[in-house]
């Protein structure tokens, strides 16, 4: 393995470890026993078949949004609009499911996924074009488009597409054929996890083994170099952005088809944002995304049990996640400091030998 990779893994594990320790101190400061707390956390995440299934179910959207972030960040165009693309994708899937209600699953599910992919992809295409054609900052545009998508779908499910019973902020239930099968009793884990495995493999292949993946990486690293080397920089940026939007759209679709069976006004608790954190931590590595998504999924699942069992608020895990990010972001600085310290030590030792 490359030296940089080893160094990175070491600092990653140190960061996670340090974040957990700080989390422990926070528990202590609140008068709770951290050992009991962490025990409840771990037990809540993987303590039984049901709990493992719940963790996996929580992981599904995180992998998709994590991969979506990876491809866009790799190409140097920053899709911060994953949440909006996810909402539109989810709504698109629900729309298919409530209008063509009697379609069999074999046709209906692919159709719903296709519509959600198109919705998410097109919603990402807009900022991508604004960026490459008019040099309008995609970060700002995508952030604002989030709000537009969330409020738009919110309006749609409260008025034109509102369910008949009460004011739910939800559509009607989608047709039976669209429901993805549940895999473990009581848990929401469903067959979407198999789709996600396939998607992950495709994304890994695309990013790591193809000339397109190579071009995306080079564009993200050095645009001038890429242009000089004959890469169509604009096309690659648009491609990366659209694929990113498609993945977010599909993440939304799976929430509808596999978990809720309808579109809800607040269908995502911020999956795209968590996906972004995950991709940042693992430096846009697709396999790293899977592992880190599992970790985040476990933290989320475990934190609820922890709160129930010990009274420690589940928000603590957001604190832990943020601390990991902080440490990772500071990685380069810390590394230089530590290296510099050892270099000086070595030097003064050498000087000492000379004088002696």
């Amino acid at each position, binding site marked *: 393995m490359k030296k940089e990779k080893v160094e990175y893994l070491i600092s990653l594990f140190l960061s996670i470890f340090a974040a957990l320790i700080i989390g422990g101190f926070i528990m202590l400061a609140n008068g709770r026993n951290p050992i009991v707390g962490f025990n409840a956390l771990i037990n809540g995440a993987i303590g039984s078949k049901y709990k493992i299934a719940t963790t996996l179910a929580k992981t599904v959207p995180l992998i998709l949004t994590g991969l979506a972030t990876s491809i866009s960040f790799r190409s140097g165009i920053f899709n911060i609009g994953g949440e909006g693309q996810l909402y539109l994708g989810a709504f698109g899937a629900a729309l298919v499911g409530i209008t063509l209600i009697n379609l069999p699953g074999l046709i209906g599910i692919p159709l719903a996924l296709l519509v959600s992919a198109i919705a998410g992809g097109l919603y990402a295409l807009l900022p991508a074009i604004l960026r490459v054609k008019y040099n309008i900052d995609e970060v700002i545009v995508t952030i604002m488009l989030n709000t537009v998508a969330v409020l738009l779908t919110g309006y749609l499910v409260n008025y034109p597409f509102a369910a008949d019973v009460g004011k739910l902020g939800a559509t009607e239930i989608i047709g039976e054929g669209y429901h993805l099968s549940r895999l473990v009793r009581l848990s929401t884990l469903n067959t979407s996890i198999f789709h996600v495995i396939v998607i992950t493999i495709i994304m890994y292949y695309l990013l790591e083994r193809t000339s397109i993946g190579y071009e995306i990486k080079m564009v993200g690293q050095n645009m001038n170099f890429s242009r000089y*080397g004959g890469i169509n920089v604009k096309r690659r940026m648009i491609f990366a952005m659209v694929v990113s939007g498609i993945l977010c759209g599909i993440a939304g679709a799976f929430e509808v088809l596999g978990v809720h069976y309808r579109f809800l006004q607040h269908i995502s608790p911020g999956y795209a944002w968590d996906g972004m954190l995950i991709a940042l931590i693992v430096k846009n590595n697709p396999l790293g995304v899977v592992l880190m998504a599992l970790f985040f999924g476990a933290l989320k699942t475990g934190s609820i049990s922890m709160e129930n069992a010990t009274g420690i608020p589940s928000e603590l895990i957001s604190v832990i996640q943020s601390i990991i990010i902080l440490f990772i972001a500071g990685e380069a600085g810390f590394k230089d400091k530590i290296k510099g310290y050892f270099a000086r030590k070595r030097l003064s030792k050498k000087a000492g030998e000379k004088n002696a």
Partner: protein
Amino acid sequence: MAEKLIEMKNITKEFPGVVANDNVSIDIKEGEIHAIVGENGAGKSTLMKILYGLYKPDSGQIYFKGNPVEIKSPLDAIRLGIGMVHQHFMLVPSFTVAENIVLGVEPRRRRIFTDYNRAVKMTEELSEEYGLKVDPHARVESLSVGIQQRIEILKVLHKGADIIILDEPTAVLTPQETEELFRVIRRLVDKLGKTVIIITHKLQEVLALSDRVTVMRQGKMVGTLKTQDANEQILAEMMVGREVLFEELEKKDVAREEVLRVNNIKARDNRGLLALRGVSFSLHSGEILGIAGVEGNGQSELVEVLTGLRQVEEGTFTINGIEATNMDPLQIRELGVSHIPEDRLSRGLSVDATITENMIIGNHRKEPYAVRGIHLNRKKIRERTKRLIKEYDVRTPSQDIVAGNLSGGNMQKMIVAREFSFDSKILIVAQPTRGIDIGAIEFVHKEIIEKRNEGAAILLVSADLDEIFRLSDRIITLYEGQITGEFLNKEISKKEIGLYMTGKAKGLN
């Protein structure tokens, strides 16, 4: 003269990963011109920055007139009478000469307002005293590089410097400006009793100017000798640490055929100003056409136009008879054009990508490296990289380290290896040896000549006149976006060409 003015003893300075100065000792005598030579990265600038208080040494001691001193900042250095002119000028372009010279020590009126009239007067007096002519009212941005350097020197003198450090002062100058600078330095030393330390890597200049010379190599001090005891060969060997053969590069006669035709090209620079004002020439197979000129006279834009990186406003150019105006870089590459860019860090490579990744660009969609243009054959790619690394002598522990870890010379060899391995018939080569060590320069020059002898057409853009003269068959001078002269190499001297480069002479020989 024999008085030791400054002594630096056992100076060591380490940056993360490199020892820039390893137990270096040097002494400077009063009233001498002391040259410090060495390849890039030898630690010359670091040593002088320590003397000027910009870096703090990890260990070692500086003595001034025999007394130990601690120079913690440039202010301490200035107090001791040490001044430094940096390689990159530190002037405010929109200020006038007078304003720049008094910057930081402005004469005041009622303690608040800058007394501009007095600043002008001070500038005139200073200019008179040292025989360095400048116009106090001129805005710096409108002045040539040579004059800007003169202002930098005046600034240092204004602060009362007796010891003046010049960091690579001739790097940006024309031959005429260099001569003028040397006259100024001589005057400062002989007439006014100043001491000058000059950092350079041009050996001819050392021999022409200095009294003593100190050679550094890889952070270590190799030795100090009297210039009269030195010659180019001795110094080069001390710098490189082995025998250097300045061998004549053999040029063969090759069939010539026009491959590139440029017709009246006009193009704008990044600020939207016309950088090329109607340039026409042709390039033939089996020849090296050198473009000489002071930097910023349209060379960069010309290269970018010809490689598809910059839009043409007017005019056309053809490659092998095919209209190629405003094609994109990929299309031009497909026509058989390779390009060694002047800015290797921002364009020639990606510092974050591995050597393998850097070497495959341009071939990453071609068989056998990409099956059907899409599936990367990593084995084939690695084999090719390995072969090229060996063939072009890129010194690296592995092909998997990121390019940013390579030295400048090895980065350039990597780029040359990639671009020359395409078997292009046209090579556009810009500043191919800027900032790289002698060994690498020799290597790159040899490769260029070899390509020429094999029948490639080479357009060479270089700010280094020695390089232009060494390699070119034909030379074109570019001044303010226009061609001012065209010569066969043998027809013209360096001094003459300087006149064409500065627009003082015009016409075709």
